[in-house]
């Protein structure tokens, strides 16, 4: 149901307030995941799946194959040798990593409608989530592995791409609402539209049949109360921490974007003041590699 925040006497409404179901039914069209990636995701879930079969499925999609191999050969993944076939890549990295790389390549395509600032923010968040998952000092390492964590960070704001594609005029108003009301991007979205990018991104992840934990993490990364599952709350809190730290490094999703995290995300993510220098060191040591991924994705 579309509700207009209308005044009386025929005055134009200030904003249009959607509910999420109407928004998804009438306003936006969530893109589908390419069939190749769907098949690979299903295959990886099968414990009897063979490496060669996964490699063959991706190799049969020349465009995806090329993009996946470019990521495999990037310095970020540090193989130290040039890989020319998917089969070789699968042997070296394993089918779950290759699945995530194929998904990453697909997401990079979806991001092409976004800005370079947004792309850099998303990839940086992915890299920071990987850093957090590699650290035994924080909670994330007990809930996911570094490759999956990268995907959580990469996808957390994908809802913004969808909203901007279908509602560019409304998206352009968000910075002004932020300044006028002193609120964050997420709060300004809700004030203008009644829905937010976390909801939309979560629905996209659901449509793509991604892991339920990922769906919850995207949905809750600005509002932990949306998620009751303890593990998903840790993932969402970690995304929130990564989001904040990227912003602290000037790597916002948009020049005007600001993030006011809930106070409990740091405790839930297990990121203490004393452990942050090591996290920053590890993240920034690989930042040049992040820029390489940005150039691959652009």
């Amino acid at each position, binding site marked *: 149901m579309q509700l207009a925040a209308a005044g009386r006497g025929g005055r134009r409404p200030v904003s249009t307030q959607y509910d999420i179901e109407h928004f998804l039914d009438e306003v936006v069209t969530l893109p589908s995941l390419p069939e190749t990636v769907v098949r690979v995701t299903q295959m990886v879930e099968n414990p009897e799946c063979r490496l060669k079969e996964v490699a063959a499925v991706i190799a049969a999609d020349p465009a995806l194959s090329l993009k996946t191999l470019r990521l495999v050969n990037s310095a970020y993944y540090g193989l130290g040798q040039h890989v020319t076939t998917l089969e070789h890549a699968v042997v070296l990295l394993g089918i779950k990593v290759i699945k995530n790389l194929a998904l990453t390549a697909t997401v990079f395509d979806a991001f092409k409608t976004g800005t370079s600032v947004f792309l850099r923010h998303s990839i940086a968040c992915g890299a920071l989530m990987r850093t957090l998952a590699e650290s035994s000092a924080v909670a994330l390492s007990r809930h996911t592995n570094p490759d999956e964590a990268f995907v959580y960070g990469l996808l957390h704001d994908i809802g913004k791409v969808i909203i901007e594609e279908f509602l560019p005029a409304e998206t352009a108003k968000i*910075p002004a609402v*932020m*300044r006028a009301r*002193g609120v964050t991007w997420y709060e300004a979205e809700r004030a203008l539209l009644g829905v937010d990018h976390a909801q939309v991104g979560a629905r996209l992840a659901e449509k793509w049949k991604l892991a339920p934990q990922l769906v919850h993490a995207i949905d809750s990364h600005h509002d932990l109360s949306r998620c009751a599952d303890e593990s998903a709350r840790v993932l969402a809190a970690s995304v929130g*921490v990564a989001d*904040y*730290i990227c*912003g*602290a*490094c*000037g*790597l*916002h999703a948009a*020049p*005007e974007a*600001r993030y006011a*995290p809930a106070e409990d995300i*740091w405790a839930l993510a297990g*990121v*203490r*003041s*004393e452990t*942050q*220098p090591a996290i*920053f*060191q590890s993240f*920034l040591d690989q*930042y*040049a590699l992040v*820029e390489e991924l940005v150039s691959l994705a652009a």
Partner: protein
Amino acid sequence: MVGALTLLGGRPCNVVLVGPRQNPKGAAAVMPGEEGSGPQTQMLSAVLSLFHPRQVADILGMQERAFGACNLPPPGEVDGAP
């Protein structure tokens, strides 16, 4: 660069950034001393537990942007609206 904030526990503090993260003296915290004594200056790394994690992220991020080698956006380049 100097920034004023409030520590966990309510004490005021000025954080002074003068160099990169890799230099232990690159960041210092200036806090009121005990009653009757002047302000205390300590290396930030020695008193991190007095800060909220969000504050530490802000400080380390700003330090890297101002003095680091990663070509992050300099302070003020992308900041602006609250």
